[in-house]
């Protein structure tokens, strides 16, 4: 059904009147993508199948479709981003939306304008959708409570990065089909990682067995200890927690390394980059301990030589470049479903 709606725009540069709006996707309900916790397995799979249809659009000689023609979409980024911002921008443009970029620098934000006022301004100029990245966890909730536009979370603080998790799920399901019983190892700074948090949700929703590997200082305390806290109704999904990567990686189907931020490598969280690399770097030797068909992933930007060895990042098992490409299709799918879904 989705594919039928992604009609080829025959003359993308012509001034002919826009075609009639595409039919709404009746079986898709969410208006916003604030997190992935609230997505059902059905909804995750719907995003992934829509993303597959989007890859067909991307394979066309002229990768354009008017599915979101007439939609005004703002990219509101309060943090630096290359991949996420450019792929959202491109996703909107490919689907025919008018895309406007607003960043923290060079806007009224620099004059001290509050997030609430900025959002009201975007709403007043007719934003239909706001894709936002913000250093404060939960900022997209504030946006969804403040204005009527569709809100897409492109990364909030240490909380969630929904489209990253969905594109990772896209790569994994393309590789393995059903993820039931597949073992995915996530290694690195779980405490500060919105990528890890969101992946825990989508991967467990899709049936994968997840193991997180980190030193205790980089784990949320509730995940590391206190059984009562792990049973809390609001707790993160139950996953295996290990500190020894050599042990955890054995027979894994996929290994995901997380970026270690430079400022975490000094001070009290970690002794040094060298010691981190020694214990947690994805090296060829370690990857060999995984299943022979195992794939290696990284959300980027990478510190080659710290959390991942260059040979692994560029090796045959790496899907890191494919993750970027998948990101475009997944973001097209998300925008399309949120804006054209529902009744």
């Amino acid at each position: 059904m989705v594919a039928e709606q992604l009609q080829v725009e025959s003359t993308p540069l012509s001034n002919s009147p826009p075609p009639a709006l595409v039919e709404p996707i009746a079986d898709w309900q969410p208006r916003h993508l604030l997190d992935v916790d609230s997505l059902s397995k059905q909804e995750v799979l719907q995003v992934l199948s829509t993303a597959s249809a989007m890859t067909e659009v991307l394979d066309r000689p002229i990768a354009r479709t008017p599915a979101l023609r007439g939609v005004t979409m703002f990219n509101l980024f309060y943090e630096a981003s290359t991949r996420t911002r450019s792929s959202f921008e491109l996703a909107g443009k490919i689907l025919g939306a008018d895309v406007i970029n607003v960043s923290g620098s060079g806007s009224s934000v620099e004059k001290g304008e509050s997030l609430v006022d900025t959002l009201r301004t975007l709403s007043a100029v007719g934003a239909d959708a706001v894709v936002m990245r913000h250093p404060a966890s939960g900022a997209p909730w504030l946006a969804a409570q403040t204005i009527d536009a569709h809100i897409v979370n492109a990364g909030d603080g240490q909380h969630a990065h929904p489209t990253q998790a969905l594109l990772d799920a896209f790569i994994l399901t393309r590789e393995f089909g059903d993820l039931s019983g597949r073992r995915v190892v996530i290694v690195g700074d779980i405490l500060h990682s919105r990528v890890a948090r969101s992946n825990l949700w989508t991967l467990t929703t899709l049936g994968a067995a997840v193991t997180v590997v980190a030193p205790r200082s980089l784990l949320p305390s509730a995940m590391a200890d206190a059984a009562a806290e792990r049973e809390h109704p609001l707790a993160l999904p139950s996953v295996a927690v290990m500190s020894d990567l050599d042990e955890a990686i054995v027979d894994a189907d996929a290994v995901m390394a997380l970026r270690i931020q430079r400022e975490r490598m000094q001070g009290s969280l970690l002794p040094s980059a060298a010691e981190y690399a020694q214990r947690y770097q994805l090296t060829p030797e370690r990857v060999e301990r995984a299943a022979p068909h195992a794939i290696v992933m990284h959300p980027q930007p990478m510190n080659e030589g710290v959390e991942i060895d260059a040979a692994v990042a560029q090796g045959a098992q790496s899907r890191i470049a494919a993750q970027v490409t998948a990101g475009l299709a997944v973001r097209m799918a998300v925008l399309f479903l949120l804006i054209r879904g529902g009744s």
Partner: protein
Amino acid sequence: MSSILIRGGRVIDPACGVDERVDLLVVDGRIAELGIGLASPAGSELLNAEGLVVAPGFVDLHTHLREPGQEQKETIASGARAAARGGFTTVCAMPNTDPAIDSAPMIEAVLQRAHGADCRVLPIAAVSVGRRGRELAELAALREAGAVAVSDDGDAVADAALARRALEYLSDLDIPLAEHCEDPAISQGGVMHDGAVSARLGLRGQPATAELSIVQRDIALAEAAGARLHCCHISTASAWQAISDAKSRGLCVTAEVTPHHLYLTHDAVAGSSDLLAYDTNAKVNPPLRTEADVAACVAALASGVADAVATDHAPHAAVDKHCEFDAAAFGIAGLESAWPVVNSLVDAGRLTLSDAIERMTIGPTRAWQLDRGELNGLGTLSVGAPADIAVLATDSTSIVDPGTWASMGKNTPLAGRELVGAVVATISQGRLVHQDTSFEQVGSIHDSRS
């Protein structure tokens, strides 16, 4: 002569061991007489307290009145009105104003501005100059001017050397150090309790150890100095254990617990509906903690390890809360919901009514020895005591609606919750400062001359 006769109420005065149905007569700002079938003097106001509880007016050891400098959040006048509506007749005002209350003239200015307000305001002074945690403020002069305690509340006295010297210096001044027990080196900018909910929401957490660290340090320093230590707004089971141990060793350590730490867990940050929210009204310092911590707070209150319920009333303007969770101000406005929260625990059988009233009246009074000089009898209904009286309903339910509050701060995660209990009338220093006209008894208040 002005007089008020309160008829037919159940008078509960824990300090005097009174719990009986008697009339109570107030004359010229003092409790004049208790007894059955008291006659009303000519010209006296009558208050029918049938079916209601008559208790000493509540004493709050921890209130933020925001004046001077933050009058957009609260003023002494509006805070005192809120106190009166909450049954509080004495509030101790924290010095984290702008500028901080760290000099004798500022104490005098607060007392002057509070003159004639709807409750008695007792100022607390900063421990350190400007609350900056570096040099001691003039503690003896502050006490002389009327400070009932010293505190850098909002922050702990983080520097152990300063905490040690402050306690030593206070040891012969006979006022306590009211410590905000949070080690900033451990809490490191955390915005909620470090636990399952912070992990889920991706919010930086304050571990329970941040509280325990300062409690243990200060107990050791206070013991060595022979000084009085008061632990503000204790929120964790482990800190209650440490305080209980110190008390059983006979140390001069007192502690308070807030209504919100008695009632809410960190779940409140995630909102009350199925969808997650980031409820900035539940952002408070110390943070709302786990169910086990809430149980420990209630147990401490029931056993008396917690000497007092203190509101930590922290009013904020709407704009301070309508923003990103990280950017939102810490604090819950609590004067007008304190009694319904505490009484709901009584209603649930977690606490006796008498103990609840004790912890809101004579408990805090004794903790800080506030009943000195002309305040002799404070926190009691004994004859000759200041006529500070709360008339309470213990079984009527109501939905918390900050829109109806006198406080300028409407920030509470309790909004919309149903609680049991109400403050029907408040008499402060012999003056009827609050009456809830939705109670029929109040409708019968009249001047007998008319």
